[in-house]
């Protein structure tokens, strides 16, 4: 249960090996020990992350999750909640993709859409169903500013984030009154293993900053947070930029 002062007892990380997921768990562990369920593919990195979080004071459970497998979300949520309620579930999996390849490779587009959109909304549906039944909980969806207005340099990725962002924003309204809440997090460019080797964009942020925003957003019961906060105004400006100009911007 999330307590009267917003402290969290159990955390489910879907895509549990992502840098933002790990940073979020670490940020929570600075406050209190808690139960962390890592849902990810069975990899060496998953074992390593589990070990790190245990060392940081968490009680760690590991469950399998594969975003390319249609049956995986139901199994994952059932296993993750077998040991007790989940207070906060962070949907943190996703791929960036290579835009140059995506522009010409329909299979790569389908695969990216499967992971970033289809799996994300299936997971959201299953999680919401489970949390409605338990009568409490917060789902945190990691969206991206890239979904706010798709641009030429990564419109495939941007479109998948736009889709999942719309899904979770609508889900937030549909669960009103059920004890469940949904927080959509829209970070800008995050320096992480996902963006390794890419030049940092303006207002680039870190997994730790995103984690901080997640924890604060959950505690305050917010529905949307931007990281950094200034991104909200930047994107608002970009959204209203005339197309002829927007296309020419070096984004």
């Amino acid at each position: 249960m999330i307590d009267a002062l917003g402290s969290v007892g159990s955390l489910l990380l879907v895509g549990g090996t992502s840098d933002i997921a790990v940073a979020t768990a670490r940020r929570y562990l600075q406050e209190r020990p808690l139960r962390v369920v890592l849902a990810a593919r069975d990899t060496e990195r998953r074992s390593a992350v589990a070990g790190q979080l245990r060392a940081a004071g968490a009680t760690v459970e590991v469950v399998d999750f594969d975003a390319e497998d249609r049956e995986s979300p139901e199994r994952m949520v059932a296993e993750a909640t077998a040991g007790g309620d989940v207070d906060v579930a962070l949907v943190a999996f996703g791929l960036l993709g290579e835009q140059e390849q995506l522009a010409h490779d329909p299979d790569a587009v389908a695969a990216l859409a499967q992971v970033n959109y289809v799996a994300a909304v299936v997971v959201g549906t299953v999680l919401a169903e489970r949390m409605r039944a338990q009568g409490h909980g917060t789902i945190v969806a990691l969206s991206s500013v890239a979904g706010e207005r798709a641009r030429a340099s990564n419109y495939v990725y941007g479109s998948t984030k736009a889709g999942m962002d719309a899904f979770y924003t609508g889900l937030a309204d549909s669960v009103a009154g059920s004890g469940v809440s949904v927080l959509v997090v829209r970070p800008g460019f995050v320096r992480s293993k996902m963006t390794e080797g890419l030049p940092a964009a303006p207002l680039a942020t870190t997994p730790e900053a995103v984690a901080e925003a997640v924890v604060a957003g959950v505690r305050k019961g917010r529905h949307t947070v931007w990281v950094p906060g200034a991104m909200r105004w930047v994107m608002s400006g970009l959204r209203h930029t005339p197309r002829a100009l927007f296309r020419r911007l070096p984004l």
Partner: protein
Amino acid sequence: MPDRTPAVPLDAAGRSPEPLSGWGRTAPTPALVDRVHDEADVRKVLAEARGRGLVARGLARSYGDAAQNAGGHVLDMTGADRVLDVDLAAAEVEVEAGISLDRLMNLFVPLGMFVPVTPGTRYVTVGGAIAADIHGKNHHVAGSFSQHVQWLDLLTADGQVHRVGPDQDPDLFWATAGGMGLTGVILRARVRMKPIESAQTLVDTDRTPDLDSLMTLLTETDHLYDYSVAWIDCVAKGARMGRSVLTRGRFARRDELPARKQADPLRYSQSVKVSVPDVFPPGLLNVVTVSAFNELWYRKSPKRKRDQLQSIPTFFHPLDGVGAWNRIYGPRGFVQYQVTVPFGHEETMRRVLERISSSGHASFLAVLKRFGEGNPGMLSYPSPGWTLALDIPVVSGLARLLDELDEQVVEVGGRTYLAKDSRVRPELFARMYPRLEEFRAVRARVDPDGVFTSDLARRLEL
């Protein structure tokens, strides 16, 4: 408009869950509320309540999530409030669990019987009083509420009714006393009342300038009075830190009343005079407003007064004169931090008070009292030592501050109180209550599937 799927499923009878919270108005969760009137009603809910389980709820004066059950059933017990038997000679009453102490006083004070133990509010049920094993100003002489219960009828998960008491299945009795409703539903109880000759108390009041003088005075004189409690100004700093008003008293004998009151010594009346509207913004209570209030309160108290006649509501339930006073903390709600530390660790108590005072998280007044001996209740709160209680509005940074204070308290063998709790760390709670494993063993015996559960039980992994 097309039909919208409701966010929450309706049950077979078409009811939808209601959001419930405790007196602190924090962390509400929805549950199906079943208003029950007798044992048959309770059985019906028990038969339906699978999955998310059920818990009984009384007048909801627990500050946190004790009487909430997210996604499950909550029994509103206040409709089961009949008096079943009265033995005037022995001063015993047999009542249904949903009856309030308020009603017991209205019925029995005129007959010369007072409730054996009352907290700062009379709006609690007998079932809740047992489940939280509540204490009052007389703990140092009378112990807590459950020590005045001859027996109680407990409906357990298997549908059996067990009559338990200190000498009938004592394990189940002492798991239920203080067990926060997690062993089953308390249906009825036989309670030993306190015989009184009048409905008036004789009260001595002393103002003390600081914490040391207060503790000394309490230690030296507590045993001379049936009831004692001190209110501390927690905003005052420096030399005035811990300045307080100590009141101690006992019920007056009939011959101690003024002549005009002797004709009708047991006359008892009370009423809620005003109710607080739900319009207070967050942050209304801040260091400035609270300091001003405390200054006024301290100055208007007499420096030293002896044998002052006070009515029951004035002496025992001053806050009950204002309905829904919890609303003044605004929509974010508040927590009550109540801890006890054993005698000999007064320094820890002082540090807790100092840390909260200096944090600027304004709290009106803190209540300090000396506890007497504890009882065999496995999760019962009182134990020999000092108990301090203070209300704090929900502000950011509070979680960390209270976690730190908990660590200091647990270090010296102290604990927090489940009826007030809405935020203690589960692993610290386990250290505070070394008999938790015994409690779990009894629960596993009478409720192996965990049908009786609550938000509190889930939060603290009880």
